[in-house]
């Protein structure tokens, strides 16, 4: 009797210890970044896990650099464009793939899935030529194009799965009411697909926001860079000094929007990701 109770208690304690470990593992780096960003650079190398005083000089410094502000603007422009284009193309493609019966539909789906399996590096040089050929080198449009290529397969795949689950009779009711496919998509399906749209849109946003390799390769001037590259290129007073304070301040600045977005859409993300899992 008592041993069973003891076991129960031990299990529960073990569980919470595990949770604590996972939490610390996941959150500590971010926490430390926040701490570091709020310390004056003189204190940087004295290790402490608490904040004694608030010092915003690092933030003031990065925001005083016009190239960093410009990079944030570029990142916002690129990410939002990618999300908008991916969702627009994704929703129309998923209507075709999920709703219209045509020959070779499965093949198209498999090709879409196959495309998403190429690693970025594999297509880097080819894509570079394409972007140069289109005259989009050192231009945010080039980034929008390349990110969309990598985001679309996932978007299409998830939205198609979701679209397939909407009842057939709903679409037929709309047809009987005189709706064209476009009206059916926008007035009937879209309002029902918000969870899936929020999920895929947010993931596309995060991917575009954090992307580094393409952003580094396809841009040249400070004026066209996005945030990840801009952060990597923040340099200190001399070759031997890494300005940790400003770097951390910049990192925190660009992470906060993501955290806020995820919190806003949290509920919908979960329902969107599991929507395909169980029937009903």
């Amino acid at each position, binding site marked *: 009797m008592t041993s069973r109770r003891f076991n129960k208690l031990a299990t529960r304690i073990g569980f919470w210890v595990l949770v604590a470990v996972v939490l610390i593992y996941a959150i500590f780096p971010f926490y430390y970044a926040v701490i570091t960003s709020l310390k004056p650079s003189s204190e940087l190398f004295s290790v402490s896990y608490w904040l004694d005083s608030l010092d915003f000089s690092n933030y003031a410094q990065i925001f005083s650099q016009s190239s960093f502000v410009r990079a944030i603007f570029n990142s916002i422009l690129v990410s939002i464009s990618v999300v908008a284009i991916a969702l627009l193309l994704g929703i129309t493609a998923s209507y075709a793939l999920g709703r219209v019966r045509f020959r070779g539909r499965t093949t198209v789906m498999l090709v879409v899935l196959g495309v998403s399996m190429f690693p970025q590096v594999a297509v880097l040089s080819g894509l570079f030529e394409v972007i140069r050929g289109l005259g989009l080198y050192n231009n945010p449009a080039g980034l929008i194009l390349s990110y969309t290529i990598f985001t679309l397969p996932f978007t299409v795949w998830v939205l198609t799965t979701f679209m397939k689950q909407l009842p057939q*009779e709903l679409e*037929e009711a709309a047809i009987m*009411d005189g709706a064209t496919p476009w009206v059916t998509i926008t007035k*009937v399906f879209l309002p029902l697909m918000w969870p899936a749209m929020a999920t895929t849109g947010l993931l596309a946003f995060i991917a575009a926001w954090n992307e580094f390799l393409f952003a580094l390769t396809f841009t040249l001037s400070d004026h066209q860079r996005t945030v990840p590259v801009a952060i990597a290129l923040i340099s200190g007073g001399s070759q031997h000094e890494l300005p940790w304070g400003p770097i951390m301040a910049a990192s925190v600045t660009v992470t906060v929007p993501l955290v806020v977005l995820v919190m806003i859409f949290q509920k919908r993300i979960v329902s969107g990701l599991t929507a395909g899992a169980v029937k009903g």
Partner: protein
Amino acid sequence: MASVTLDKINKVFGRDHIIKGIDLSIGDGEFVVFVGPSGCGKSTLLRLIAGLESITEGELRIAGDVVNDLPPRERGVGMVFQSYALYPHMTVYENMAFGLKLAKEGSETIKERVMATARILQLEDLLHRKPKALSGGQRQRVAMGRAMAREPRILLFDEPLSNLDASLRVQMRNEIARLHQRLGSTVIYVTHDQVEAMTLADKIVVLRNGSIEQVGSPQELYQRPATRFVAGFIGSPTMNFMPAELLGGDAEGCRVSAPGLGKLALPQDANGQGAGAKLTLGVRPEHLRLAEAEGNNRFEIVNVEYLGNEVYVYLEPKAGDTLLIHRSEAPSHWSIGQRVALVPDLEHVHLFDAHDRALGIAKRSRAA
């Protein structure tokens, strides 16, 4: 309101010939019910009329105009789906107004029509609700309202009551019947519930394997089924069948012998068949009489079901064939284990030939 004419309508899905040359004409304001077993093509036929499926071959006319190539909205048809398929994110009002908005009606007209429809269907208090906050019967009414709001010439129903429980089904059945009397619109209604078919229809179309088995009023189908299939499909409990042999026939009728019933003189025309032809004799449970005859007690009562207003008696022929059912008004003094004789009501006995087609009544028959 309009008439509908189906002229040799065919539908082929891939390699499956689902609808096989249907000819049918539906009058203006008529209530027509398609019945038949599952998979016989009722829904497909309805969807062909709606315009949700393309017609492979044949001509469909509404009010005299060929509509084969018109999209649903230009055919002037409204449809009520089995699952209702209400737009979940719209209120009842928006559900009903959706089609009108797409038809670019003015906002005054839309409001007027929706309110008028809501009044007819008693939905006025529910207009601001979303479908998920409605009961089954209310959803059903909204689905009808949505179909009716555009004032279609023809209303199509695909098993609209099959998601409701039994008592609600009876109530909605009544509402649909009264609605039809009030509006006088042409209605085509699919069901596999023969009680719905009998109670609602002006005209019943019995389908089987994509072909029409018989078309007629409920009375015609009940009294004069054209085939054994129709005879077995219409009526509850179902008609009793037993093998019979033709003994001979003349202008006034024919004589047959059936095991357990002896020799019977019936008003049917033997239709040129000679003595010895194999027939099937059919008689409804309500057209059998039980008698305590002495030498002739060939049937054993194996079960008695008391339903309050009526009693079903299940009889086993000596030969051990399928059970026969006798129906009578309660009370009944029959009990399990008793041996009895069966006396069919000769005017209501049906005969089917080897191809399961009913034999007609002879021209100069005694009964006619």
